[in-house]
């Protein structure tokens, strides 16, 4: 399936053929041009020890210890020695680890990941190319093996590997799209190497990992109550393949979302129980990423109830487990950012589709700047809608790079397109909040009376409403009321293995129907909830009590 695809001129990614030898030379030549050569001809002893120890742990498969080194020691050493400079190059540490090939690929991946995250101005073109080559080597090693490779890495490492792979693709396509900022040499190199970081290669890697691990079949069997292991196959039985397969599905979710393909985004997650904590992954960052993209896709499909359910459940989870994240600062930053984005998206959804959400979430939305933003949006402030959306949406990209195009900046185009689609929807719904605010005051309301209210709002200067105008106003109002009902009646997931399934429901708190020319209104009142609050406090006190009892004087 991969490596011998006959529909692209060059195989999208393959072990040796991704760059010609000439490019390799170019690459070596450029290596030192991109950033200042750091001052560590002598690598600090602590770093040396770390590298040797990490290699040993990987070779012996001590996952617990690897996890510790990866999550704690590596960031600590980074902070200590490599805050703004790259880690030592592969050639510098090669002998230190006896040229262990697998370790060197893994190291190279970390080396580039660090450059992407910490080096001012980001990676150079050559570094981007070589980082891509690193992924090719790593994934070829894993996917092309005739039997499962003896490699065991902690879940968090595997997740960040896939996540970073998609991120670097995203970063590259933005770099690629900004033709204004590229030098002629860079443009030439880019055009010569169109297969590098090509979207098909990225798709191919993710699809191959999914296929190799039989993860779809495993999830299907698991969802129907069977034993996933029984269908896992030779590779999928191993944690390395199984986890990579699972994370690749999430990678695909993200990639499809970035291209604006929301249908496929949700489709790839078939058989994953979105509303429950996954049995396949205990990585919070992965869970949060899933919820962010799924919720976003639902919002774009006008499935507000589903979006609100997705966001609130993950935001509650984050609220309650916050202490757990605090120790790991680099993950924390990412989680905080995504949390803020999701509150923005949730705010948008709740303005468009008011409904009851958990008290703890409402609390947050009442505080901070969300309250003001929601108020503005409720008043029909389109600029506020756009600002919230632009802030919180994924960084969309065009999967096909600009070829033979005028030298312009194409980065913003895909984002602007999605903003446009969203704003078209918002504009269609513009009158709904106003109508809702009137309906809220009544249980029954004649059509003509509401039409008067609305037209007096548009003629504020006291002109009398003529009867011909009134008939027109009523006609217009019927259209708006039909639109209200249509927009508030959406597909909502109730059961089934696909997140795309669902039935039409009206989930918003205010509903109405028309009996000829009389509007009958049904509102929802929610009484205050205390139980949850008290249960949590009681548990907290019990825990405190228990700890106090354990203290010995």
């Amino acid at each position, binding site marked *: 399936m*991969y490596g011998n695809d006959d*529909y692209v001129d060059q195989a999208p990614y393959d072990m040796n053929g991704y760059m010609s030898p000439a490019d390799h030379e170019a690459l070596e030549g450029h290596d030192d041009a991109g950033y200042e050569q750091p001052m560590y001809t002598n690598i600090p002893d602590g770093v040396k020890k770390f590298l040797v120890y990490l290699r040993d742990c990987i070779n012996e498969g001590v996952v617990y210890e690897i996890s510790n080194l990866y999550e704690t020691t590596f960031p600590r050493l980074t902070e200590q020695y490599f805050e703004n400079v790259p880690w030592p190059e592969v050639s510098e540490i090669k002998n230190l680890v006896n040229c262990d090939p697998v370790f060197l690929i893994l190291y190279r991946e970390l080396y580039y990941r660090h450059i992407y995250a910490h080096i001012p101005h980001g990676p150079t073109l050559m570094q981007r190319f070589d980082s891509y080559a690193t992924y090719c080597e790593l994934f070829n090693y894993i996917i092309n093996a005739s039997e499962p490779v003896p490699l065991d890495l902690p879940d968090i490492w595997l997740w960040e590997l896939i996540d970073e792979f998609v991120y670097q693709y995203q970063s590259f396509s933005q770099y690629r799209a900004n033709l204004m900022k590229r030098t002629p040499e860079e443009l030439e190199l880019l055009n010569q190497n169109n297969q590098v970081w090509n979207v*098909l290669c990225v*798709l*191919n890697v993710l*699809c191959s990992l*999914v*296929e190799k691990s039989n993860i779809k079949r495993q999830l299907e069997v698991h969802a129907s109550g069977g034993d996933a292991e029984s269908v896992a196959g030779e590779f999928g039985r191993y944690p390395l393949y199984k986890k990579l397969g699972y994370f690749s599905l999430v990678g695909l979710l993200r990639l499809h979302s970035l*291209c*604006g*393909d*929301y*249908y*496929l985004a949700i489709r790839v997650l078939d058989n994953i129980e979105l509303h429950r904590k996954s049995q396949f992954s205990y990585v919070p960052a992965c869970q949060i990423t899933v919820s962010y993209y799924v919720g976003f896709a639902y919002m*774009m499909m*006008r499935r507000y109830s589903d979006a609100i359910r997705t966001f609130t459940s993950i935001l509650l989870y984050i609220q309650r487990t916050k202490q757990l994240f605090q120790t790991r600062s680099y993950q924390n930053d990412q989680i905080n950012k995504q949390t803020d984005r999701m509150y923005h998206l949730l705010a948008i959804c709740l303005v468009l589709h008011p409904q*009851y959400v958990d008290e703890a979430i409402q609390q947050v939305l009442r505080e901070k700047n969300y309250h003001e933003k929601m108020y503005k949006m409720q008043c029909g402030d389109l600029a506020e809608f756009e600002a919230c959306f632009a802030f919180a949406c994924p960084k969309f990209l*065009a999967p096909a790079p600009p070829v033979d195009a005028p030298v312009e900046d194409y980065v913003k*185009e*895909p984002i*602007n*397109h*999605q903003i446009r*689609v969203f704003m*078209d*929807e918002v504009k*269609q719904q513009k009158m709904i909040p106003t109508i809702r605010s009137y309906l809220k005051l009544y*249980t029954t309301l004649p059509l003509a009376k509401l039409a008067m209210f609305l037209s007096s709002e548009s003629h504020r200067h006291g002109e009398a409403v003529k009867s011909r105008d009134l008939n027109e106003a009523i*006609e217009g109002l019927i*259209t*708006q*009321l*039909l*639109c209200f*009902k*249509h*927009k508030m*009646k959406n*597909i909502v997931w109730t059961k089934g293995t696909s997140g795309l399934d669902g039935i039409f429901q009206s989930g918003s708190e205010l*509903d*109405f*129907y*028309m*009996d*000829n*020319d009389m509007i*009958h209104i*049904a*509102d*929802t*009142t*929610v*009484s*205050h*909830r205390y*139980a949850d609050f008290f*249960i949590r406090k*009681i*548990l907290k006190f*019990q825990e405190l009590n228990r700890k106090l009892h354990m203290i010995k004087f």
Partner: protein
Amino acid sequence: MEDGRKQTIANLLKDIERYNPENLPTLECYVEHQCRENTYDLEANLAVLKLYQLNPQRYNIGIICQILLKALTNLPHTDFVLCKCLLNAKHLEESLVKQIMQLADVLERCDFREFWARIHTPEFADNVVHITGFHDSIRKYVCHVVGITFQTVDKTLLAGLLGGVDDQTLKQWVKKYGWKEEANGIIFVANQDENIKTKNITEKIDFENAAAIMAASQ
């Protein structure tokens, strides 16, 4: 026959094969087939738009328009939005695409009178003629919206929403949806008051939630 075709297409949409541009001619034919035969396959149509997205030089504006119009026939579902998200600024500049966008906007706003006025203009009539059952698909959507909004509706109003249909046609639609014509030109749609009621959400505590606390405080 139809099932067989659908299966063949489904195989083209599996995994990485979905992104194979060599499948475009087959999939484009399939779009035309759907227009002719009044069938519909959102997944296949989205795959076509995806291939255009990946291979911008290969897009066919006629096919895009057909896909968009077919998406309108599946209202109230949001297929049209899904298709729109896969297009780009360049596609939207095409005049026919622009007009279809406006048409979709009118339908999404439920401004059905405006819709029927537009659809009979020559530029649309010519395009829509290739889409079998287009008008009736829109009428189904109108009936959906009417069905969720009205308990009783004025007959003239309903006929207007359905595109100024004659009495005979109106009766057929009323019958199809199980509505009833009453006296005084009123049509009874459904007992909405059974479903649309004022709700009070009161607090309920699951036994599961409280059990742990009760057990611990013994």
